[in-house]
């Protein structure tokens, strides 16, 4: 199951590499913010998945809303002549790091639980045999 999103990611990379679209250079910050929002959503999604409280509607609306806000900020920044990509990128980046730390803790805890249980089980089984 975990493989399907990874395959989708690779498929996306393939599509992007094969399809030749003439991107104007002005589009670069918009693409950047979409990528940042997507990575943020992916890390947040994995986190909530591991915490067992993943909701598809929350996930997708979160991704859409973040992307739209980011695009709006960049558009506004273009108009004002201020690089508003930076604050959006910083926030997305911070969220990614936070999510990663939570994911790390959850996985570590699970692994510790698992090894503890296995140890306990292996200690219990010899008694049962004898």
């Amino acid at each position, binding site marked *: 199951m975990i493989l399907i*999103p990874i395959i*989708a990611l*690779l498929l996306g990379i*393939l599509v992007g590499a094969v399809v030749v679209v003439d991107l104007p250079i002005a589009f*670069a910050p918009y693409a*950047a913010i979409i990528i940042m929002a997507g990575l943020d959503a*992916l890390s947040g999604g994995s986190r909530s*998945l591991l915490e067992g409280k993943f*909701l598809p509607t929350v996930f997708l609306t979160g991704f859409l809303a973040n992307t739209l806000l980011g695009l709006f900020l960049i558009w506004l920044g273009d108009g004002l002549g201020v690089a508003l990509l930076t604050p959006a990128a910083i926030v997305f980046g911070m969220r990614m790091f936070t999510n990663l730390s939570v994911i790390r803790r959850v996985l570590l805890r*699970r692994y510790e639980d698992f090894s503890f249980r296995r140890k306990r089980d292996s200690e219990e089984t010899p008694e049962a045999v004898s």
Partner: protein
Amino acid sequence: MSNPFVSRQEPKGWVVSLSLVAMVVGTMGSMVYFKSLSGGRMDRPSAGAREGTAGISEENVEKLREEVSRLRDENQKLSDTLAEGQDASKDINENLKKVSIFAGLTEIHGPGIIITLSDSKKSAEELLDYSAGIIHDLDVLKTVNELWNAGAEAIAINGKRVGPNSNYRCVGTTIHVDEQKIASPIAIQAVGDPSVLYGALSLPGGALSEIKDVDPQMVKIENAKELLLPPWKGTTEFEFAKQPDPKKEEDDKE
């Protein structure tokens, strides 16, 4: 419980939504990545807007140029006929000839070298900076400067003579020398001591070493036993500059 990383309560619908976002990220990412590698040319600000300098069209310039050379020929004829009769004006005429040779107003022939600068044929990926593989106005200017410095007596670029107030500009994708468009390959002919000129231009760290570092194929220097350079066709009319005291100046000459 064999896999420690499997969650006990599996939320529904995560595969589809995560895959969706992952695909968006992948597509955008690779699109931007491959785009920036292949075609992402960031041109330096185009100077195309300045092309029509002061509203003078190119045809007009060409016409004026022809007229200038015609009038100059007539002038030469007149001074020749003048000189035929009188001895005194012969001296003046000779002087005039010297001056016009110095100013580049006459045809000139002699030994020298031909430098050919051409755009690199390497691909943009090989060059890292594609702009480095192009001959710019500054390269031409540096070469000409180096040639003067090495004792060149007359220089022509792509068959157009360089005069006292020749200028070099970057206009869009072409270089203008005296408002005349030139493009790669640029042949610079210089009359002077061939070995000295050759040495000056192949100096390590010299004017052309920067281009040679990018691609040695961009520079070609050949010796020439006999070069024939056309006269300079720029204007010699001065509007503001005037001689302080013409009489005194003439006295000095004699």
